[in-house]
C-alpha cells in the first residue's frame, strides 16, 4: 500500500540578504501531518492532528484538516496546504453540481474518483495526499486513499501524512474488521496521539468526525485530554 509519507522540506539558504526576512516566511506552508480514516458498519470515523508548518514555524496550531466535501463526505488533507485546499474546493464544486444533476446524494466513490482525477492529472505540480471518507446509501461507510501520485484504492482503514509512518505497526496490530463506532474512535484517537508524540510536523489537538446515515458528528480532543502512554 503506498504511503503518502511527507517530510517537510527545509531549503538551505546561504545568501545573507535574507536576514531581513525570517526563514519561515520563505518556506512553503505544509500540513506535515497525521491523518486517519476507519470504516465501521454504518459509517466512518475520520481524524487528524492540527498543526500547519512553514519550515520550523507552526503557522496554525489549531488547523482543521477535516474538510467537508458534501453532507456525508469528508476529506482528510496532508501535504501542501495550498494544493489540498484548492483541490478540495474544486472537488466540492464538481460534486455539488453532479449531485444536483443526479437529484440524489452523491456516492463516496464518486468523490474519490474526482479527487483522483485532479491529483493524477496534475501529479507533477501537486503535493497532496488525501483520504476521502463518508457514508452513502449504496455501500455504507467507505474510506478511499488518494496518495501522492494519484493512485486510488479503497481500504477499511488508512493513515496518511508524515506522521503515518510511525503508526503503521500500531494500526496493523490493533485494527480488526468488525469494530464498533466507539472502538474506531478510540483507535483513531490513540493512533493520532502516538504519531503526534513522535512526528515533529504533527501536533496540537486531535480533531475527529463520525459520518453515518444520521449525519456528521464532530469533536475535538485537547492536548491535556489525550491518552497517555507509559513511555512518556
Amino acid at each position: 500500500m503506498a504511503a503518502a509519507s511527507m517530510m517537510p522540506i527545509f531549503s538551505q539558504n546561504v545568501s545573507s540578504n535574507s536576514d531581513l526576512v525570517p526563514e519561515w516566511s520563505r518556506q512553503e506552508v505544509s500540513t506535515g501531518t497525521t491523518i486517519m480514516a476507519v470504516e465501521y458498519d454504518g459509517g466512518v470515523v475520520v481524524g487528524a492532528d492540527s498543526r500547519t508548518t512553514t519550515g520550523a514555524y507552526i503557522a496554525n496550531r489549531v488547523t482543521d484538516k477535516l474538510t467537508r466535501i458534501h453532507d456525508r463526505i469528508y476529506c482528510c488533507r496532508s501535504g501542501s496546504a495550498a494544493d489540498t485546499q484548492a483541490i478540495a474546493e474544486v472537488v466540492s464544486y464538481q460534486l455539488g453540481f453532479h449531485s444536483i444533476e443526479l437529484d440524489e446524494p452523491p456516492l463516496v466513490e464518486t468523490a474519490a474518483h474526482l479527487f483522483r482525477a485532479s491529483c493524477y492529472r496534475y501529479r507533477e505540480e501537486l503535493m497532496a495526499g488525501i483520504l476521502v471518507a463518508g457514508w452513502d446509501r449504496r455501500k455504507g461507510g467507505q474510506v478511499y486513499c488518494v496518495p501522492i501520485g494519484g493512485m486510488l484504492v479503497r481500504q477499511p482503514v488508512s493513515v496518511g501524512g508524515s506522521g503515518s509512518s510511525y503508526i503503521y505497526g500500531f494500526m496493523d496490530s490493533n485494527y480488526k474488521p468488525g469494530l464498533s463506532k466507539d472502538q474506531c474512535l478510540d483507535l483513531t484517537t490513540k493512533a493520532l496521539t502516538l504519531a503526534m508524540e513522535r512526528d515533529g510536523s504533527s501536533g496540537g489537538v486531535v480533531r475527529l468526525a463520525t459520518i453515518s446515515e444520521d449525519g456528521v458528528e464532530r469533536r475535538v480532543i485537547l492536548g491535556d485530554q489525550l491518552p497517555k502512554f507509559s513511555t512518556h
Partner: protein
Amino acid sequence: MLGEEAEPQWISEEVKTGTTIIAIEFNGGVVLGSDSRVSAGDSVVNRVMNKLSPLHDKIYCALSGSAADAQTIAEMVNYQLDVHSLEIDEDPQVRSAATLVKNISYKYKEELSAHLIVAGWDRRDGGQVFATLGGLLTRQPFAIGGSGSSYVYGFVDAEYRRGMTKEECQKFVVNTLALAMNRDGSSGGVAYIVTIDEHSTDEKVILGNDLPTFFDQ
C-alpha cells in the same frame, strides 16, 4: 538511447542491512530481536543473516545500517572487549561494551553509517539496553532501530509497560518484528531472538510462516 543496464544493480550498490532491530530489558536480563534481510539496492543478497552479533558471552549487539560498517564495528569491539575482560579478570559490564561501540561510532561518525544497539546482562546492573545512534550513549528500557523501526514507534509506545516478564518481552519483540517486517521493504525473512539472563544465553529462530499475522494477511 538504449535503456539497457550495463550491470545489475547489486554489483554497484552498497550492501545495507536496512533492517528492524529491537532490544528490551526485563528484570534479570534482556531480549534482542532482528529480522534477516540484507539488501543491495533492490536485490536481497542475504535472506537469512543473523544481525544479532555476540560481543561477549552475555553481551550482544544488534546491527543496522551499512552491513560492512556494522560488522566491522562489532568485530573491533569484540576484540577490544576480550582484551579488556582479560585485563580486569572478570566478565565485562554491558556499559563498557556500549562505551566501546559509542567511541568508534562517534569518532568516525562522518565516515560510518551504522547503528548498533548493545544489550546484555552483567552482575552489577542486571539486564541493560544501550542505544548508540550517531555516537551518543544512552541507557533505555528498550530500543528500536533500523529502517523498519519507523513503522513500529507507535506500536511500541502503546504496548510497552514497565515490569514485563521474560515471556512477555519475547512476545513483544516477536510482534514488533513481525509488524515492521510487513511494512518495511528492507526488512524481512526470518526473525532471530536472543534472550540473555544470569543463567543462559538462548538463541532462537522463528521462520516466516510461524510469525504472528495481522488482519490483512
